[in-house]
């Protein structure tokens, strides 16, 4: 579910980057407070480990197809959610730079959709609360599957929202969800099963490596489940609010997308919203749409524009061929 740059607009990118940066800043604060200088090399090597583990094909029983691992929950179950989150950021950056898997601009989205949910919701919330009375094979399996399925659903849902508010697809929001969620249910299940298998193995071989395992008579948690849920809900609300604000400020992305969903502007309320959005848009849009005097670019694309593209392409290819010709002559 890596998002490409093309699927988002600057507003979406900025909001999600800010949200992810916030989560990263908090994680850095928490990791620094642990005061364990060995954490950094561990994060580096474990990041490389996740990357390598993602490259292994897993045969899915009964289907003949193969699946892969994402690894956010697994990593957090070993490193803790904060170091796990920071490690996933590094992994996503490597994927985006070296493999074009997810865009540089969409990095904030991808960190949020994959790392944030996997590490914070999957590990901090689900894993930790299931493990609070000690670990067993059953509990590990339950936590891994539940954690992976839920966080992948949340991730897929976020992908839909981010694409929708960016307004690049004419696909209605509901149809988009209907396509994304079931696929990610299956992916989440496979992820959960692999995670469970690995963590059960670790539990048997080196149980002390697992994070967040409570004992029977544990002191009351400093952060209760309710409080944690509250914090995450508040964070989600803030991000959602910012995202819709950014969306309303887009050149015409949301407007365009809304039009698709609502058919035409039949809803009177929607008409009001359009005008409001238009006003905000005029006030905040960084770059004006093409408004060259005498330009007929109301639709954004014109015949003369396309002709210009063709001519420019021909000129550039000519220059390129000339360059190659001279280069090969020089080398020869």
């Amino acid at each position, binding site marked *: 579910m890596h998002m490409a740059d093309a699927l988002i607009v600057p507003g979406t990118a900025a909001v999600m980057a800010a949200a992810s940066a916030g989560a990263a800043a908090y994680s850095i604060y928490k990791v620094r407070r642990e005061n364990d200088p060995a954490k950094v090399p561990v994060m580096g090597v474990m990041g490389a480990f996740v990357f390598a583990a993602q490259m292994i094909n897993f045969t899915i029983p009964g289907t003949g197809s193969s699946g892969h691992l994402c690894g956010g929950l697994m990593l957090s179950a070993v490193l803790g959610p904060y170091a796990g989150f920071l490690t996933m950021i590094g992994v996503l950056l490597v994927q985006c730079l070296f493999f*074009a898997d997810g865009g540089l601009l969409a990095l904030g989205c991808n960190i949020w959709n994959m790392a944030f949910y996997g590490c914070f919701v999957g590990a901090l919330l689900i894993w930790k609360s299931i493990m609070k009375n000690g670990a067993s094979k059953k509990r590990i399996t339950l936590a891994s599957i539940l954690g992976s399925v839920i966080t992948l659903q949340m991730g897929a849902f976020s992908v839909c929202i981010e694409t929708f508010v960016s307004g690049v697809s004419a*696909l209605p929001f509901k149809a988009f969800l209907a396509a994304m969620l079931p696929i990610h249910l299956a992916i989440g299940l496979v992820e959960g099963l692999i995670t469970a298998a690995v963590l059960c193995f670790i539990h048997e071989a080196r149980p002390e490596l697992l994070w967040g395992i409570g004992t029977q008579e544990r002191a009351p948690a400093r952060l209760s489940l309710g409080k944690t849920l509250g914090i995450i809900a508040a964070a989600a609300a803030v991000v959602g609010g910012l995202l819709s604000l950014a969306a309303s400020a887009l050149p015409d992305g949301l407007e365009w997308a809304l039009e698709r969903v609502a058919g035409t502007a039949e809803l009177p309320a929607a008409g009001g919203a359009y005008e409001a959005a238009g006003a905000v848009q005029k006030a905040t849009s960084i770059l004006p749409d093409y408004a060259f005097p005498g330009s007929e670019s109301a639709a954004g694309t014109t015949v003369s524009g396309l002709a210009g593209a063709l*001519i420019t392409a021909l000129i550039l290819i000519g220059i390129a061929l000339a360059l190659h010709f001279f280069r090969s002559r020089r080398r020869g």
Partner: protein
Amino acid sequence: MSRIGNAARNIGKLDELARRDTWLNRIHPLPKLLVTVLYLVLVVSFSPRQLTGVLGMAIYPFILFEFGDLSFTSALYRMRIILPVVCLVGVLNPIFDREPALTIFGVTVTGGVLTMLSLMVKGVLTVLATYLLIATTTVESVCGALRMLHIPGILVTEFLLICRYVSVLLSEADRMWQAYSMRAPGQRGVAAGAWGSMIGRLLLRSMDRAKALYQSMCLRGFRENSTLLPVKGLESKDLFYFASFTTTLILLRIFPVLELIGRLFV
């Protein structure tokens, strides 16, 4: 498994390109990174129907690919992961949006076709721009640029170590897979019974390696706030690069260059 080998080869190839000595490689990483981000922002800022505008932005990667002596084919090869997704999102646009947008030689083009095409062009251009950055900038330089942007040292060090150890762990995973597949002929992936022990053993080995690595770093004076790499200063050519490309890109974004050229002829 070819996936693992492919990944290692890809990283190796990019690293080799980044270590060449062309003028683009010699430009300071910070302006290159900033120009790349600016370019990405400008490309995706076009509204869905502005196909001409997006096409105009292709001038930048095209010219720099030529001058940086980079190959389009290997850049486009990288898109096999991400482009299908982008296409999938856009491919239904013509069905949902049938409103005619313009007519070329009597053929009516609908808004859906325009939005689909501009989405695909955006997809290609953004991947090209990122490739342009990483194929001319080494990992160490990227880290230097991140430090100059005040990205916390903990993240930069971690990123550097990931890049260093990806090749080591990929070859370890490859060996484990080979050892597995020798004893499980005909399997295309790891069977469910071995999921836990295979990845689990790789995980344990990685944790041990991390511990040894930490010792090795400590023995050579590593502290948490150590700066691993010196930060290079900006030279006038770097500033010139930054200023000229920023201006050019913004001008490309604001003025419909292609349309102006086209109107000379049509």
